[in-house]
């Protein structure tokens, strides 16, 4: 870890100010720290070298979960354990509790926050090696594109082929969540499906629309029938501790005669952003979830997949997760 300055603002505006002074390289700019469970790992491998850490944990009002008829609000500093153990979340947003539970280990979840989970940096091993200056670190090449790309993107990749590591993100996108953000330019509310950026669209050095002085303060999830019938299925190579090789976040609203009225399907672990599949969602409307319909939906969900040399297995794997997640959500 490179030496840095530690600052303890007591409110959000101070925090934003502390984030403002920016050095030349984006990876050396001040960073906000909440749980630090990802940020500190990027600092230990020198992927990020912030001159200052701005501690958000003394800012009041960012660490509670509230649930009412309109929906769920989650303070950005709520820990992943608090989220997964919250009785109301488990009851009315089961997929979200499952997604939280699927993350890392109990130790990580005791400190890692919801806001931090959405802002994790990629886990691509090229990106994480200090010696390798890849495209996402200001270099000129995505080494995964033609290298050891077993864990990389099969959809939406190029010129970088990272996958987004967040487990909450696909579920929150499926549930139509928004995030409240405060920055030097003021406050704004961003729908989560507009929050993440593809390498081909946004700043290639980042994975979302946040500017360096932006802080996520809250996540809002509208109450809906979809939320009550939601599930998150994550496939890990090593069950004990792993990021998703692929995951499926699914939410359903059922109509009469066991037919689907509305569906949300978002894939994780396969694209640089949580990857929503509207064509598959649309296909499901009005249909019963028969094995044939599930198989066809899964097929449609992966039609855009363009696997790299070593990750074609992710296609059948993700199809399985889509099928199983839909069947599971329907039975909730």
């Amino acid at each position, binding site marked *: *870890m*490179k*030496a840095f300055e530690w600052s303890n603002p007591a409110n959000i505006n101070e925090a934003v100010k502390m984030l403002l002074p920016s050095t030349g390289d984006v990876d050396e700019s001040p960073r906000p720290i909440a749980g630090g469970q990802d940020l500190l790992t990027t600092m230990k491998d*020198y992927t990020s070298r912030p001159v200052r850490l701005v501690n958000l944990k003394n800012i009041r009002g960012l660490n509670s979960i509230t649930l009412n008829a309109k929906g769920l609000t989650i303070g950005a500093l709520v820990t992943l354990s608090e989220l997964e153990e919250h009785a109301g979340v488990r009851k009315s947003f089961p997929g979200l509790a499952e997604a939280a539970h699927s993350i890392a280990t109990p130790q990580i979840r005791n400190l890692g926050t919801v806001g931090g989970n959405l802002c994790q940096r990629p*886990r691509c*091993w*090229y990106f994480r*090696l200090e*010696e*390798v200056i890849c495209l996402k670190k200001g270099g000129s090449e995505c*080494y995964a594109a*033609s*290298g*050891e790309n*077993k864990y990389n993107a099969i959809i939406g990749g190029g010129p970088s082929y990272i996958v987004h590591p967040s487990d909450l993100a696909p579920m929150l996108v499926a549930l139509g969540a928004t995030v409240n953000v405060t920055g030097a330019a003021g406050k704004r509310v961003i729908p989560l499906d507009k929050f993440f950026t593809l390498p081909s669209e946004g700043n290639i050095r980042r994975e979302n629309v946040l500017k360096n002085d932006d802080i996520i303060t809250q996540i809002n999830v509208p109450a809906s029938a979809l939320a009550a019938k939601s599930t998150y299925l994550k*496939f890990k*190579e*090593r*069950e*004990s*501790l*792993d990021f998703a*090789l692929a995951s499926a976040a699914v939410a359903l609203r059922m109509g009469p005669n066991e037919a689907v009225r509305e569906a949300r399907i978002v894939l994780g672990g396969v694209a640089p952003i949580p990857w929503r599949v509207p064509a598959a969602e649309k296909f499901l409307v009005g249909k019963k979830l028969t094995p044939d319909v599930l198989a066809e939906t899964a097929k449609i969900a992966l039609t855009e997949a363009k696997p790299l040399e*070593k*990750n*074609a*297995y992710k296609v*059948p*794997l993700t199809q*399985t*997760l889509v099928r199983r997640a839909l069947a599971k959500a329907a039975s909730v």
Partner: protein
Amino acid sequence: MQQQPQAQPTPKPKKKVRVPRVVNGVEQMVEIEVDDEAGPGWGPNDKHKLLNKRQTRVDGPLKATGVARYTYDQRLPGMLVARILRSPHAHARITKIDTDAAAKIPGVKAIIPAPLSEVRFAGAPVAAVAATTPEIAGDALRAIKVTYEVLPHVVHAHAAIRPDAPKVVEKEENLKEAGKNGDPQKAEAAFANADEIVEGEYITARIHHACLETHGMVVDYRGGDTATIYASTQGTFTIHGDAAKELGLTESAVTTTVEHMGGGFGSKFGLGLEGMLACRLSKQTKTPVKLMFTRYDEFVMAGNRSGSWQKLKAGVKKDGTIIALQARQYRLGGLGPGSQAGQPFIYRMGDTYREVYALHTNEDSSVAMRAPGFPQASFAVESLVDELAYKIKMDPVEFRIKNLRDEVYHRQLRRGAQEIGWSRRNPVAGGNAGPFKRGMGCAVGAWGGAGNDQCKVDVTISRDGSIVVAVGTQDLGTGTRTYTRAIVAEELGLTIKDVQERIGNSKLGNANPSGGSTTAPSLAPSVKDAAIKARMMMAERVAPLLGNPKPEEVVFADGKVSANGKSMSWQQALAALPAGGITSHGVWRTDLQSRGVHGVCFAEVEVDVETGHVKPIKMVHIQDGGLPLNRLTMESQINGGMIQSLGMALWEGRVMDAHLGMQLNPGFGDYKLPGSLEMPEMVPIIDDDDKREAVIGIAEGCIIPALGALVNAVFNATGVRVRETPVTPDKILMGLMNPNVLSRG
């Protein structure tokens, strides 16, 4: 007690025996001369009071409460922390090292170059820094400017074997022949008589020891005439000699201590480059220096298990007799020669011919790892044997029995089949319905496990009742401390608590390095010898108080000393000792140990054929080992063997990038050790049908077969034969999608 002891040393006849000595973790057979006579033995395995029972380990309370002090926990006044600068290039010449900026950082006390001017693997040490904190040492590393002349590299075996591949070492071939065995014409001709032939290429990934305590040491040298080295090592006596040279001291002026150490598995012998650099930094600063590898260092510099690439072809008769084998074996040891047992390993295969090669790449040299070369050979041959059995539709257990000579395996295989419930197994591979398919597999393994004559043990009994057994050996977590105490306590009719052990110090009696399962069979006989001698010395002292029996007639049991119908307490007996107490000196006795262990492993798995996920359900390992010194710790070690083999089978493997020449997974996130959720039900079984009254090492034996058993179980479950470890979901799914890529049964 047991048999008749020798009362007084008399000139003894000698005999020559071949014993294993461990050099850098690898067994080498040497001929030595030992006394040609049998002393008192261990007695029947079922007649022990303390041995062959379940003894909790004596250092358990220290380890469970965090009090046990490991090398990594040493902190000395003024101690500096050292870090190593690694080469980012897989092959390069170092043309310049500019340390000016680094040296100016406050807290940086010394910067030295590593001894190499040409690096041949990414991660090779280039320089080392000593500073007041690890953070400052890290700053200094990043301030050193190194200029490299980058040379071509090759890190993948399939690329290194090409004639136009870059040379790993200039002017040397990447492929070096390492031996041939058998008659190629005869083997080739034998295939004509085969009813079925199986041909396949089997590959095992390079895996890492992943010792939780990284390699390293604390060198405590402050400019005087002596030095102490706290080392995380498997060989207390493998360090001070080279350290003395580095420090410019006499060998006897340097003491090595290893109180507790956090795992070695074959990788921790000798001073090592890290120790050399630590000595140089300490010498230069005249200050204690701690140099422990970072986890990244550990992955790229601390050695690894040799990978393997084996091309096998075997022919079988319909009656189940294997009649021919051709093998081409590549040992993938990076810069080193690698290791791999010769095929057909322990099977009888008629006319066999093998060629063995070392195939070099720009990677750090592999080093010994628990049963060096054996799991690799076992995986390949056990896969092959399984394929042959399926081909002729013979039960894999019966097929193995037919082609294994040693009847111990027959017994163990039948028992293992019963324990796992082999009769539940579907003989049709992939034949079970539904996406979650169960399957079973088995495999066998062998190891030597003999000891050698390197241990010198003292037992001192003081008049105040303290009993100390002292020897410089090290406890790697195998339970050495516990059985050392137990042997002495049992001999004297006392309890484990009555004895204290002193180990892990090079000023104590010599001991062999712990490699190749040689520790127990070397140490236990020497401890036993010292204990017997101490008992005889006690007996002579107390004899006058018991009506002058012959010393060997004095019985030490249950805390009492008796003879001729007279009895006294241990406390009373102590009063008969001279003021300085008594000290006996034990040496190794060949008749107290033996050689040759057998093990079989059975595994049941459940494979989700729609995701490729393999869930281990149950593993059974049956292991013989002569006299079990401690059943509790022996079972733990069998579990450990199964679990490490399970890791090799399903998750672990070094990943190298061809272009960058670097390891991509040098950390515990991407190098996937099995964790709690990966654990099946585990059944470690000590084979008590082995009646040998002799200590034999079992550590290596119990890591060998599980790998093959698991992979065979995956095949039985899915019908997909994955011939390359680790057997990860991608390989299983691709195998199911493209039957032509991988063999299907």
